[in-house]
Structures are given as C-alpha cells and as structure tokens.
C-alpha cells in the first residue's frame, strides 16, 4: 500500500468528523424534520397566548346578550370588537372586566359618514345626529334599530329638521311650536300648520322664574317690542 493512503485516510476521517461535529453544533435540533426549518418553531409560535377569546366563548355565560345580538342588526359584530380582547375575562370573569364602550366616539368609528364606505352601510353625520346624547340612549348597542321610522316632518322639512338636530332645540319636537293637521301632509300648501304668534310661547320655557331648565330671560323687557324669532332663529337659536 502506498504510504500516503492511510495518512490521507486519517486526515480525511478527521475532516469528516469535524464537519459532522460542526454540523451537529450549528444546526439546531428539530431542523429539517418537516422541511427546511426548525420544526420546534411551529410549536413555540402555536403556544402564543390568546387575547381574543372569540364570540362563541361569550355565549356560554352571556346568553342573553348573545341572543339579542343575533336577532339584531349587530349580528355580524363580534362581542370583542366592541368590548375589546376578553380572554382574561373568560378565565376570571370577576377579576377582569372588559371595557364597556359607551361613548359616541366609539360607535362613530363604524357609523360616521365617509364616502369611501360601501353605499347602503348605515351612516350618520355625528355632529348632526342627536349630538351630544350617547348613542345608547336611543339604540340598544346589542341590537340597534332606528327607534322610530324616519321623522314624519323631516321627510319634507329635512333642512329644518337637520338644523334643529344640531341646535339647542334638538330635543324639542316640532309639535311644541307647530300644530300640524294630518291633512297638511297631503295638501301641504293649502293646509298650513300653525306658527307661533306670541312671545308667550317661548316664554313657557324661557320666562324668568321657571325652576330649572333652559336659560331664562325677562319676558317683559328682553328684546321688546320684537318677536323672539326676529332675533333668534327658532330652529337654531343662537345668542350672538
């Protein structure tokens, strides 16, 4: 045998051993078990904690809200979309309480008017829509419905209705100041509703001496001899 062969064989064996050793050291365990990656990584990713429990989880204990929601317009909106991630609450219902989003701003994230939103999605102009009352006063957040069919006067007097809804008089129904016969709607020009004729009408709420309530003036001296609406637009009363 040629002398070099055993020597080369030894060198070769050592080289291979080093290579294998290095490979053993450098390649992490579980690498290549399922493909060109560390199989264990999948497990550690799968083990991340969950923050959103999922709407099914809530139904176990909140059957009432779940049922109401499923029957209403918010049936597609998950509980945690509004109440925030609630997995900790599911673990310990009494220790951790989910948020209750009862501000107007919250509802408006979905319902404010935006031209980019799909047509048909119910939208409102937040500044005009019953500002500043909380939405839940009129709509059940779990099953919201427009509480009444679109206002019977606003159908034709939209401009006035919209202006009024923004104003200090937002809460006053048209009937407080106008008596409108039903026939007005069929023959609006020939059957006219009444319009306020006296300062006393405004005085029923604004005259000095009435307990609580709206700002007061002295009916005898304030703005005489003019009618109140010569200076204050009744559907949008301003003081400047």
């Amino acid at each position, binding site marked *: 045998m040629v002398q070099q062969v055993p020597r080369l064989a030894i060198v070769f064996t050592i080289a291979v051993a080093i290579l294998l050793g290095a490979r053993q050291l450098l390649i992490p365990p579980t690498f290549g078990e399922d493909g060109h990656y*560390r199989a264990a990584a999948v497990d550690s990713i799968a083990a991340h904690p969950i923050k959103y429990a999922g709407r099914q989880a809530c139904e176990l204990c909140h059957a009432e809200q779940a049922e109401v929601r499923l029957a209403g317009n918010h049936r597609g909106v998950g509980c945690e979309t509004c109440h925030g991630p609630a997995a900790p609450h599911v673990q310990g219902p009494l220790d951790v309480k989910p948020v209750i989003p009862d501000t107007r701003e919250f509802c408006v994230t979905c319902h404010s008017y935006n*031209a980019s939103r799909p047509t048909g999605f119910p939208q409102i102009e937040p500044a005009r829509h019953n500002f500043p009352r909380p939405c839940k006063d009129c709509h059940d957040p779990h099953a919201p419905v427009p509480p009444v069919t679109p206002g019977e006067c606003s159908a034709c007097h939209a401009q006035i209705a919209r202006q009024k809804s923004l104003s200090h008089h937002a809460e006053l129904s048209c009937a407080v100041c106008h008596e409108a016969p039903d026939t007005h709607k069929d023959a609006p020009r020939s059957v006219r509703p009444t319009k306020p004729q006296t300062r006393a009408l405004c005085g029923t709420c604004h005259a000095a001496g009435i307990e609580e309530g709206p700002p007061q003036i002295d009916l005898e001296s304030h703005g005489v001899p003019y009618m109140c609406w010569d200076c204050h637009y009744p559907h949008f009363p301003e003081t400047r």
Partner: protein
Amino acid sequence: MSLIPSDCRECPPGSVEPEGVDRRDFVKKMAAACAAGVPVVLGVVGVPGVNGQTVDGERYDPTMHYYGMGVDPAKCIGCGRCVNACKTENDVPRTEGAFNTWVERYVIRNDGEVIVDSPDGGMEGFPELADEAGIRKSFFVPKLCNHCANPPCVQVCPVGATFITQDGVVLVDDDYCIGCRYCIQACPYGARWFKEEKRVAAKCTFCYHRIVKGLVPACVEACPTQARIFGEVEGRATPLARFIRFNEIDVLKPALNTRPKVYYANLDGEVR
C-alpha cells in the same frame, strides 16, 4: 382569469412544499398517519401538549388543513378594527410601519388619477374625503401577508428561518432569524416588517396560535361586516371554498407567480 382550478384544488404540482399536492397524496398521507397510529405531528412536538390542542380537546393535525383567506373589499367599511385587533393579539408595536395587516383606501378621481392612503394602517379609521365631487369611486382594501404557495421571502432566507408550515402558513422562526432583512426586500406585497425589539423579521401568522385551537384569526373575529373569510382552501363545503366559487376572484400581482392564498372578490383593476 382563472386562479383557482374549477375543482378548487389549490396547490399545483411541483410546489415547493411537500404537503397538499393533490387529493391522492393527501389521502395517502392520512392513511400513513393513521397506520402509524400517531398523528404526524407527534414526531415534531418538542414539548408535549404545546402543539395546539383544539378547543374540544382533540390534537391538532397540520396535515389535515390548508389555509387561506378571502377578502371582500365591497364589504369593508374602513373601521380599522382588524388592524387594531391584530396589533393587540400579536403584540405588534404601535409604531410606524409595523403592520401584519392594514387597510388601504383607494380613491379613483374622475381624471383617472389613483390615490392610495393608509393613515396609521387605517387603525383609527379614515378621514372624510375632501373633494367628493371630483371622485369617481373610492373603496377600502384590507391587506395582509398573502401566504403564498410560492413565496419569494422563503426562497431568499439564508438560514431557513422563514418557511411554509404543513398547513400552508408562512411563518418566521424568530429564535433563529438573523435579522438580515432579505425577506423584507423580497416580499412584493410589503407584508413584512422589522421588529426592532428582537431584531428579527416579523409578519402575519394567520394567528397560527389561534387557528391551531380552532379559533379564527383576530382580524376575522373583529371584522364587523365579514369582509374577511378564513378557512380551508381545499374541499368544496368550506366557507372559503364557497366564497371562492361564488365570486370573481383575483389575487394580488398574479404575474409574479407567487401563488397567493389571500383571495380578493371582485377586485378593482387599479388595486395592486
């Protein structure tokens, strides 16, 4: 353009991934798994019990699934709840550029000009449009990692720290990632970002930790209008397969042959 064969088999032959090549292969694998008496996953489990138990206590078997997502831009209202939920669920920092999913607004003006914006990824919604009269149309498009069947990001990773799982999800092994950012460069969809805190690449995981437990991804859970549909790509009787069958489906940048598994319904031609 037909992206999905009519029989809804997604992963075409010659895919880089061994799994889900076709039904026969799939059935064979199942048979093998059963014959061995243990789910294939058992072999990979490092810590027993960590690999997802589904809610009803059954062991999760990745070879039984192949995931994708359907997106219906016509339903998106741009409320940003998905972006918000994703950040919370996955501890994504609320810093600029760190998004697993985000929402873009497309505005197509009468003169044909296309404007895309995504303030804060759409997380807090979108401001009203200024000049409504000059606009032909406008809509929202949710975006996320496309979990491509042929992902460029996986191809470029020098160490094998990003990969496709057996159930078709592209993940990053952030204990092994060296932070070289090749994958961030390689992704044609801008779906990856750099996690400064760990100095690794990060991305959408389809909420892997949720889906192995039988839950839907956080963005899907949070979406109020069902603009996102998550589920199995294969088979006919799954919500996603139905969505794909009943809509005109497009994927993003089909010419790149990345074979995305995020399917968009009736997508406007301007969306890229």
